[in-house]
């Protein structure tokens, strides 16, 4: 498009922001407002929103603080993907628009709406508390402040990346299971739990783990990888989730938790019969998609570990089959890659 190139050379382009609006005091349901502004090269989505707030519509509400990708305040969905508004370039986003020239801006998902782009972060904080996302030091009280724990750089690197998390909740918004089950622990909280569990200074590893293996915990993760793909700090969240699972099986045995048990049964099912027997699966309680998403990944991982090639699945239900196949392919790929990665290390 030549006119775009001209504009590019000028360093300015007209951009429409289609922004999700909702004020619980007056609106019975959300709607979108369009704001068209002229955006120069190098401008971020956050700066554009600031501009709109200052010059066009002061009631447009969103959070922002550091404006430098450090504080995690400005998580929102831009063109359908959860990310930080302050580090997203408008001109990059223009390439990703579904409708040319229109950037869609929406609040994060899976957290209660407050107003416009602002969602309630309290559920996330509550989960951090529920899963004891802190170090309970093993240093005797009388010794605190008097000496250091000796910690190797190697141990530090085990949680270094995990401590990059700025709790922006982008992963929370992208998590597939959270959208169905709000009580699910959340990727960021799993990551933080992992970070605590591998820290040698901590004294409540077992307590935390016993909570993580319960319902809505680590076994509920479907391995869809969306959290990792959307993490604004490129943290390998899935490595943390695997590590917790492996740790759980190691510390608590494979039969200990319902998740592990189901995964095992599921895997046997596929291995022995080459197909899924619906009756043996907890479909009644959780539904087809849920069951597949929850149990398939772990089963796949076990199969790969035993080097048994997964047989092609057969599902009778015509409704679920497309979803299932797509998921199966996606997960097989992820599990394989993941497995390769962990071997390379």
């Amino acid at each position, binding site marked *: 498009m030549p006119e775009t190139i001209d504009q590019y050379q000028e360093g300015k382009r007209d951009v429409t922001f289609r922004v999700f609006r909702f004020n619980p*005091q007056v609106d019975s349901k959300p709607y979108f407002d369009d704001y068209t502004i002229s955006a120069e090269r190098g401008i971020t989505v956050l700066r554009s929103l600031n501009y709109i707030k200052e010059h066009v519509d002061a009631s447009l509400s969103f959070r922002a*603080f550091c404006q*430098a990708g450090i504080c*995690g305040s400005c998580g929102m969905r831009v063109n359908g993907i959860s990310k930080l508004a302050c580090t997203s370039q408008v001109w990059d986003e223009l390439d990703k628009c579904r409708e040319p020239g229109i950037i869609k801006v929406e609040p994060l998902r899976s957290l209660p709406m407050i107003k416009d782009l602002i969602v309630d972060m309290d559920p996330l*904080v509550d989960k951090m508390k529920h899963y004891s996302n802190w170090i309970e030091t093993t240093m005797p009280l009388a010794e605190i402040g008097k000496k250091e724990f000796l910690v190797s750089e190697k141990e530090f690197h085990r949680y270094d990346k995990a401590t990059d998390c700025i709790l922006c909740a982008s992963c929370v918004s992208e998590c597939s299971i959270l959208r169905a089950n709000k009580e699910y622990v959340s990727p960021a909280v799993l990551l933080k739990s992992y970070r605590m569990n591998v820290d040698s200074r901590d004294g409540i590893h077992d307590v935390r783990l016993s909570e993580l293996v319960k319902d809505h915990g680590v076994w509920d993760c479907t391995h869809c990888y969306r959290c990792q793909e959307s993490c604004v700090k490129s943290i390998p969240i899935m490595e943390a989730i695997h590590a917790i699972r492996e740790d759980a099986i190691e510390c608590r045995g494979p039969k200990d938790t319902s998740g592990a048990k189901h995964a095992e049964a599921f895997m046997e099912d596929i291995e022995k019969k080459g197909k899924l027997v619906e009756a043996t699966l907890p479909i009644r309680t959780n539904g087809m998609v849920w069951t597949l998403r929850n149990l398939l990944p772990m089963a796949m991982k076990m199969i790969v570990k035993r080097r048994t090639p997964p047989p092609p699945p057969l599902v009778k239900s015509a409704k679920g089959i497309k979803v299932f196949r797509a998921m199966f392919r996606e997960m097989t790929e992820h599990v394989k890659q993941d497995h390769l990665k962990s071997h390379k290390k």
Partner: protein
Amino acid sequence: MKPFDIVIVGGGGAGLYAAMEAMKTNPSLNIAVLSKVYPNRSHTSAAQGGANAALGNTAKDDTIEMHIFDTIKGSDYLADQDAVDVLCSEAPKIIRELENIGTPWSRLEDNTIAQRPFGGAGRPRCCYCADKTGHTILQTLYEQCLRKGVIFFNEYFALKLSVNGSRSRGLLAMNMKTGKVEAFPAKTVIFATGGYAKMYWNRSSNAAGNTGDGQAIAYRAGIPMKDMEFVQFHPTGLRKSGLLVTEGARGEGGFLINKDGERFMARYAKEKMELGPRDLVSRSIETEILEGRGFDSPAGKYIHLDLTHLGADLIKARLPQIREMSLNFEGVDPIEEPIPVRPTAHYSMGGIDTDNFGRTIMEGVYAAGECACVSVHGANRLGGNSLLDILVFGRIAGRTAAEEAGKFEPGTISEAELKDSVDDLRSRMQPSGHYERYGALREELGQTLALNVGIFREASLVKKGINDISELQDRFKKVRVFDSSDVFNTNLMQVLELQNMLDLAETVAAGALAREESRGSHTRIDFPVRDDEKWHKHTLATRINGKISAGEKPVTMGRYELQERTY
């Protein structure tokens, strides 16, 4: 609401440490932490470099005494020497305590906490966690507060102190989620609201909310501000946003270039060139711009930080974050083009006047962290000393308040006072006729401060600044809040923040005009040398009957005599 023993305003490093320590000192106390952002978002998370403590891990011969000396010298001899003693003596303990409760630190071969060299320090004593030290410290403190069950009022915006004669009855704050003004009757209040450098707006590296709210609230309640004229500038902020490009860029060999293509640092620091001390480099860049050798753009004048000669590989490997910042905020890839930069307001040395225990002159009111001025930084803060300051004095303020809360009656806040506060907010939403845009005022304030009360100051300039500020204060009365909603009214919040900046700006400018000397970060072109005879003292600014009134306070000596500060 049930009266609190302690209400802490601010959930940054200072506020959280105060909360933790207060609970430890007396677990039966009823303590609340109020914060306008979730505590983990506080600006403490932006500190990359680290925190100083003479642990002696990296340099075995480092001592607390050397740390004290470096700090006093760095302060250009304006720090109170007994306070510096507390700061540096507590440093090893507090860093170890943080280590004990879970802060991840980078480690040395012998598995102890790693330390690196930092500007102005005689030994490598800056403890760090990669390039995210503030972030990890803040996370640890937040985690520990959650563990201990500290009661948080997140996204509450503090509005004013309720004052009864010489003491406080508590605090009024707006719940952002509901828009309601709530009373927090309390025996004691601790301010830990961070710095005020954001009043330089686009010429500041600070978060949008570092608007000096606590200081402004205290100032309006009659509590003196100390040494407000001292604002530290960092040489390389991005042109458009003021965001920081860290020293790393110059450390790896980046050049500073003017419009004529010169590496102009040759004129100011022949040997060290780009690696001279912060204030010298800042002044040099500013001189180039003032003398017309800067570049011009709609976003203001600037010079180039050129990394192109370093090559793509080195930039990608060693300066990935700087590249990302430059791409994100200027749309410039430093591999191909130089980064547009200019000095940026970075840290506020001045603040609420406190003693070494965090007490202010008002009974039951304490302050700690960047919003307080003890003073340990004097005229110039050393890198890595401010994280230390917020931890050490946050803890002390928490302990003092916990010990002293019993002395005070629980305050009560009347319905009438609450209603006044609500009416005040409401009235801003319905002015008629001509109105002002808060966004424009905010930008103008930043510009006039940067121009007239910035790196170079001079009587006539500062007077111009004072005029501008008072005009802006007048125009502020016509600022209108367009968002009429109660729920999360960020429009109203930003207007209130602007008011705080405008109130405090007058203290910064007044100090800058009064102090007829050049010391630390304060450079007067018309008084280019340090004048110990007349100005070896703190300045105070107090609001009496709505008018600023100047005062002063001696500097506590006792350890080191005045010397010339040379490096």
